[in-house]
C-alpha cells in the first residue's frame, strides 16, 4: 500500500498545510510519496524531502505545471496513479480544483474535505456546513481524497527523502494562464495562523479594518472576514472565513462585528478559543464564543489594542 500526497506550494515554498495532509496520509497507512508539480520549484521539492514520514519526493518541474492548471496536473497525477492506493491533496483551492478531475479520469469517486481517518477506506467529513458529520466508506479500489487540514496536526520536518525528477509532461493545451492579483501581506496566512481576528458587516467599511491591524500586529494574527464583509466590498475574497471560504481552527479566533451565520461558524467553530465582540447581545456568535463582550467595536477595538 502506498499514498501519493500532492504538495501545496507556490513554486517557492511548501505550504504548511501539506504537513497536516501528510499526517492524514500516515493514518491511511503505507509508504508516502510527495509529488511536487510546478516550474522552477526545486526548492519546494527539497522542503518536501524534509517532511517526516515521507519515503520519496517526485518532482515534475515543467512550464506546463507552472500555474498548476487543473487540465495539466490532473493528467500528470492520473499517469502516476497506478502505483498508489490513496491519492491525497489538501482541500485548498488548488486541490479542490484539480482533484475531482483526477478522480473522474480514474473512474473513482472523490471523498472531499476529510477531518479524520477511521481506517484505510473509511473517512469522516463534515456535510451541511458542518451541521452534520458523515462517516463514509469508500468502495473504490483507489481512493481520491482531499484533506481539511484543521482536522490534523502537522508532522515534523526532520526527514530526508530523496528527490527524484520525473520528465512526464502532460499538457492538455486547452487552458492558459492570463494573470493573477494576489494579496500581499506581511501577516501569517489565514490557514496557518495561530491567532485570527475577523471583521464582519459591523465594521461598516473597508477603512475600519485598520482597527483590526494594530491588534493583529500585537498578536501575530492573520486577518479574516465574514462573507457579508467581502460581499459588501470591504475586503478581498481571499479573507473570507466560512463554509465556502477558508476553514480555520486557530488557538484564538476573535470575531468582531460578526453576527455568526451558520455559514461563517462552519469556517471557524473548531477554533480552540473564540472571542466575540458585538453590540447585539442576541447575536448567534455568542452561542459559540468562550468569551463574549457586548460592546461597540469602535470603542472596544482601540481599548483592546492598548491593553494587549
Amino acid at each position: 500500500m502506498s499514498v501519493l500526497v500532492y504538495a501545496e506550494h507556490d513554486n517557492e515554498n511548501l505550504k504548511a498545510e501539506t504537513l497536516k495532509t501528510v499526517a492524514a496520509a500516515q493514518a491511511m497507512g503505507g509508504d508516502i510519496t510527495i509529488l511536487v508539480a510546478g516550474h522552477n520549484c526545486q526548492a519546494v521539492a527539497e522542503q518536501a524531502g524534509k517532511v517526516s514520514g515521507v519515503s520519496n519526493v517526485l518532482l515534475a518541474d515543467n512550464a506546463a505545471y507552472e500555474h498548476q492548471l487543473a487540465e495539466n496536473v490532473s493528467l500528470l497525477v492520473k499517469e502516476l496513479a497506478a502505483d498508489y492506493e490513496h491519492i491525497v491533496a489538501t482541500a485548498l483551492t488548488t486541490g479542490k480544483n484539480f482533484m475531482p478531475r483526477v478522480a473522474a479520469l480514474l473512474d473513482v469517486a472523490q471523498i472531499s474535505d476529510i477531518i479524520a481517518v477511521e481506517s484505510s477506506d473509511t473517512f469522516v467529513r463534515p456535510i451541511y456546513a458542518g451541521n452534520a458529520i458523515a462517516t463514509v466508506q469508500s468502495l473504490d479500489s483507489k481512493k481520491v481524497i482531499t484533506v481539511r487540514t484543521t482536522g490534523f496536526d502537522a508532522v515534523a520536518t526532520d526527514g530526508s527523502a530523496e528527490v527524484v525528477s520525473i520528465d512526464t509532461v502532460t499538457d492538455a493545451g486547452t487552458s492558459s494562464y492570463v494573470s493573477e492579483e494576489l494579496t500581499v501581506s506581511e501577516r501569517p496566512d489565514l490557514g496557518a495562523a495561530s491567532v485570527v481576528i475577523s471583521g464582519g458587516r459591523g465594521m461598516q467599511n473597508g477603512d475600519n479594518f485598520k482597527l483590526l491591524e494594530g491588534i493583529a500586529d500585537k498578536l501575530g494574527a492573520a486577518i479574516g472576514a465574514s462573507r457579508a464583509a467581502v460581499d459588501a466590498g470591504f475586503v478581498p475574497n481571499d479573507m473570507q472565513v466560512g463554509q465556502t471560504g477558508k476553514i480555520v481552527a486557530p488557538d484564538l479566533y476573535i470575531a468582531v462585528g460578526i453576527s455568526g451565520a451558520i455559514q461563517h461558524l462552519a469556517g471557524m467553530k473548531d477554533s480552540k478559543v473564540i472571542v466575540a465582540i458585538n453590540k447585539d447581545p442576541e447575536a448567534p456568535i455568542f452561542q459559540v464564543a468562550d468569551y463574549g463582550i457586548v460592546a461597540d467595536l469602535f470603542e472596544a477595538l482601540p481599548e483592546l489594542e492598548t491593553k494587549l
Partner: protein
Amino acid sequence: MKILVPIKRVIDYNVKVRVKPDNSNVDLANVKMAINPFCEIAVEEAIRLKEAGVASEVVAVSIGDKSCQEQLRTALALGADRAIQIDTSENLDALNIAKLLQKVVEEEQPKLVILGKQSIDSDNNQTGQMLAALTNMPQGTFASIVKVEGDKVNVTREIDGGLQTLALNLPAIVTTDLRLNEPRYASLPNIMKAKRKPLDVKQAADFGIDLSPRSTLLKVTPPATRQAGVVVESIDELVEKLKNEAKVIS
C-alpha cells in the same frame, strides 16, 4: 451559443439541518427545499450572457425525482428557455451525476456549461470538475468574472491568495463562486410564463450508465457542540481571561 446549467435541489440555506435519531442520515422530512445558491448564481450568469447577446439559449438540467421540477421551474422563471429532468429516486454521488451530465452534454452540445461550485448539502465541490474531465473540456472553477471572447472564455477565479484569470478554449466548464453575480428575483408574470416552457423528463436508467454507489454512508452524527462561554464586562477582564484562564496570549 448554447449554455447548459445543471442545478440541484437542496435544503434551503436558512434551515438548520437535524440529524435523524438513528444516525442514518439527516432528516429532510418537511424541510423547506430550494435551488442550491451556487446553482442559482449559475442560472443568473447564463441568463445575463443571453441578455448580453452572447448566448442564444439557456437549458437547465436537474437530476432527481419529480420534486426537482420545482427548481427547474424556478430556473425557467428566472429566464432559462427550457429544462430537462433526469428522473431517478437514487441519491447519486458526484461521479455518477457527472456521467449523466456528460450524456446531456453529448446530446445538447453546449459551448459553455455553468455549474455551482458546490452544493450546500453534501459540500463536495466535485461535479463541475468531474464533468470537465469526462468531456475533456477545460475548467474555470470558483468564478467571479466570466467573459466570453471569440472562441475563448476568460474566467477570473477566487483562489487562496486572491484572484487568478485563466483563458479557456470553448467549449468549457465554469463553476460559480459567491461573487459572480447577485441573482434576480423571478417576477410573477415570469413565474406564470415558466409553467408553459418545455420541461422534458428522461429516465436515468435509460442512459445505459452503471450508477451503482461508490461509497457507503456508515453514519451521520451531530457535530460536537460548543458550550456558550461567559460574557465579560470589560476589555480588562477579557484580556485577563485570555492571559490567565485560556492562556492563549501572553
